[in-house]
């Protein structure tokens, strides 16, 4: 009996050896499998962007240096400081901190205070910090909240307290349909991003057959729809996955059978990264395109070498290409500007310019933002009556040597 067990174990080991034999031999032949099968065949080579044009007369936080304001004047950041998506929040409040530091250094007569409130990015936890912030009378303007879910949950509180807030990151289009007078969006929304992504895929990437896969979040569903609509006849199939899903084999089988040359994943990197990795492992050689929810170094970390076939769309401007901003940010945060750092900086600048112009209570500051019409470092800021920016820009990004780099504006 004991012998039989040993035999079985040996048989198991032998089978394992045989199987791996098949793969090791093949892996060694095509000159280093490390490049990933996605690299080259149908992937279009779009050069990385090395500089972007910044508006000449951009409003900067320093202003004219002659501003005066009460020493209690306070701006606040409300959003994730901890939690699973903390990095996005950190990118943003460092941008705000930089704007406030530059303002206070130049304006001895107007030292604006900065307060941070943590929501963990969670809609269920956001109401507490928002209520607390709106009760503090010294806070006259807010940059936040970064995510669509928490913005949806707390917009009413800001509205009731008449506190102006500019979101530097939330992209769900329905946020501006609530009639809120205090909500302003400092970037393009997904009704802009979806069509831009569709145009990017069928245009620059030359995709003829695009498969759209969306997750079950408000963000993923909304963006999946606007992108699918934009694709028209290039859309050859759709699938829906769930948050937390890890195995995408059936979806991948459908994509392979449909012979898609590009896949658009509408969701976040937690599912997008393993999805891309499994796609490439199954021999997919087309391009993989994702929105701002995927544009994070975590995507590359989790997808591994498969991420070489990935492109991203994002209504965010590559702040790392604005030299003055990049060096100042680096000195403050000891890191490169991340996704939405420049949006945080610009949003804070709009509020600081208002304070400097003498709008030092909540009602005046709301009005200031409403009628604002000037260039920021990243783009022109002028809101319509709903709180959407006019003419927002969507940028394309790609993965190059394990880093996300911008490739220029898309969708125009």
């Amino acid at each position, binding site marked *: *009996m004991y012998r*039989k*067990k040993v035999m*079985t*174990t040996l*048989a*198991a*080991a032998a*089978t*394992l*050896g045989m*199987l*791996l*034999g*098949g*793969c*090791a*031999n*093949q*892996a*060694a032949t095509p000159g*280093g*499998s*490390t490049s*990933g099968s996605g690299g080259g065949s149908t992937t279009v080579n779009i050069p990385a962007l090395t500089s972007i044009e910044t508006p000449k007369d951009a409003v900067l936080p320093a202003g004219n240096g002659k501003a005066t304001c009460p020493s209690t004047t306070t701006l606040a950041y409300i959003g994730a400081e901890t*939690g*699973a998506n903390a990095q996005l929040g950190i990118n943003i409040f460092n941008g705000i901190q930089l704007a406030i530091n530059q303002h206070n250094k130049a304006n001895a007569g107007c030292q604006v205070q900065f307060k941070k409130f943590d929501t963990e990015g969670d809609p269920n936890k956001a109401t507490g910090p928002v209520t607390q912030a709106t009760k503090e009378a010294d806070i006259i303007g807010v940059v936040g909240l970064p995510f669509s879910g928490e913005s949806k949950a707390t917009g009413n509180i800001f509205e009731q307290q008449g506190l102006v807030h500019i979101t530097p990151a939330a992209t769900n289009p329905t946020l501006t349909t609530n009639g809120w007078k205090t909500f302003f969006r400092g970037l393009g929304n997904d009704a802009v991003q979806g069509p831009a992504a569709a145009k990017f895929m069928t245009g620059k990437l030359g995709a003829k057959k695009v498969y759209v896969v969306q997750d*079950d979040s408000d963000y993923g*569903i909304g963006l999946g*729809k606007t992108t699918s609509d934009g694709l028209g006849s290039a859309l050859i199939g*759709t*699938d*829906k*996955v*769930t948050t*937390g*899903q*890890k*195995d*995408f*084999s*059936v*979806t991948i*089988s*459908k994509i*392979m*059978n449909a012979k898609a040359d590009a896949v658009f994943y509408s969701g976040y990197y*937690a599912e997008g*990264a*393993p999805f891309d*990795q*499994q796609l490439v*492992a*199954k021999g997919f050689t087309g391009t993989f395109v994702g929105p701002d929810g995927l544009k994070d170094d*975590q995507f590359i*970390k*989790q*997808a*591994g*070498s498969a991420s070489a076939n990935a492109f991203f769309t994002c209504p965010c401007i590559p702040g790392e290409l604005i030299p003055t901003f990049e060096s100042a940010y680096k000195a403050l945060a000891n890191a490169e500007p991340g996704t939405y750092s420049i949006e945080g900086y610009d949003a804070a600048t709009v509020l600081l310019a208002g304070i400097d112009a003498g709008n030092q209570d909540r009602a005046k500051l709301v009005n200031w933002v409403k009628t604002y019409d000037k260039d920021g470092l990243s783009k022109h800021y002028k809101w319509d009556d709903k709180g959407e920016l006019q003419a927002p820009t969507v940028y394309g990004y790609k993965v190059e040597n394990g880093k996300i780099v911008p490739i220029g504006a898309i969708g125009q």
Partner: protein
Amino acid sequence: MIPTLLTVLPALSTDDNSWITFDIPSLMQNFWSATFDGLTFGSIYALVALGYTLVYGVLNLINFAHSEVFIMGCYGVWFTLSFLGFGPSAPNLSLGSIVVNLLLALIVAVCASALTAFVLERLAYKPLRKRNAPRLVFLITAIGASFTIQYTIFLVRGPVPEQALTMFKPTPIFDVFGTIVDSQQLLIVIAAVIMMVVTERFISKSRTGRGIRAVAQDPDTATLMGVNKEKIIITTFVIGGILAGAAALFYVMKIPSGVQYNGGFILGIKAFAAAVLGGIGNVRGALLGGLLLGLIGNYGQILLGNSQWTDVVAFVVLVLVLLLRPEGILGTSLGRSRA
């Protein structure tokens, strides 16, 4: 009734895309790949399910912390392979060194999981047994232990998954009706089935296995007959841990970015469902339940149009099976000779 429901329900959906489809051509087209992928994942479920089943058989306890026993194995695999220099790209190694590396990772994973199971039993369950605690207390302790391990990992490793590691690049071995079976799928299914057969033989033939069955059937009589109950219980936990460790290797092979503090949770629930489907307490039931759960979910999601149906279909089938056979397909019978 059902046709009416199918026309009424879509109206409730906010999504204006087709809510549900019965896509038979797609099922035909993707049938074989869904089968092979379903069997691959099903084998992983089955290996983890065995851990639930064995412990249930012996202690009548649903060990909810088993998903953490599994995830500790995943961390074992991850640490070993990153120590050995594996990275995000498939390494360019000879056959021999891949086998050696994977075996090393397997050994570390098995040790990590078995040790976790051992410590768990000693710290969480044994003291309760000594005091003759009611069964509900065991259940609550199991859930508590699960959270404790999960958040200890969270404190040490943080909220984000570990860097993905690729062990080897799957290569086609043969094809069935035009669908390629790759080395990874074949390796996982064959190795998992062999392990389960060995476990089954061990439990039905060996002396310790007889002891396990005796304790499962009647702990008091087994003790009177000279079976060391405590030793049998700890052995059962360790066997469950060993199988979970092996499952961990295959899981990380399939999902390289799955090593995360709460990464075992959903897989644990599925494996538990697989154990119940096959008949909890039944070793062959765990195998059958795991494979079925993998297949049904895959077929269901193709037929009904999208991936969000996977779990719905799998769990509806589970409920239906339990309605007709409350003991699961093969019945709960670790104690009887059917095990």
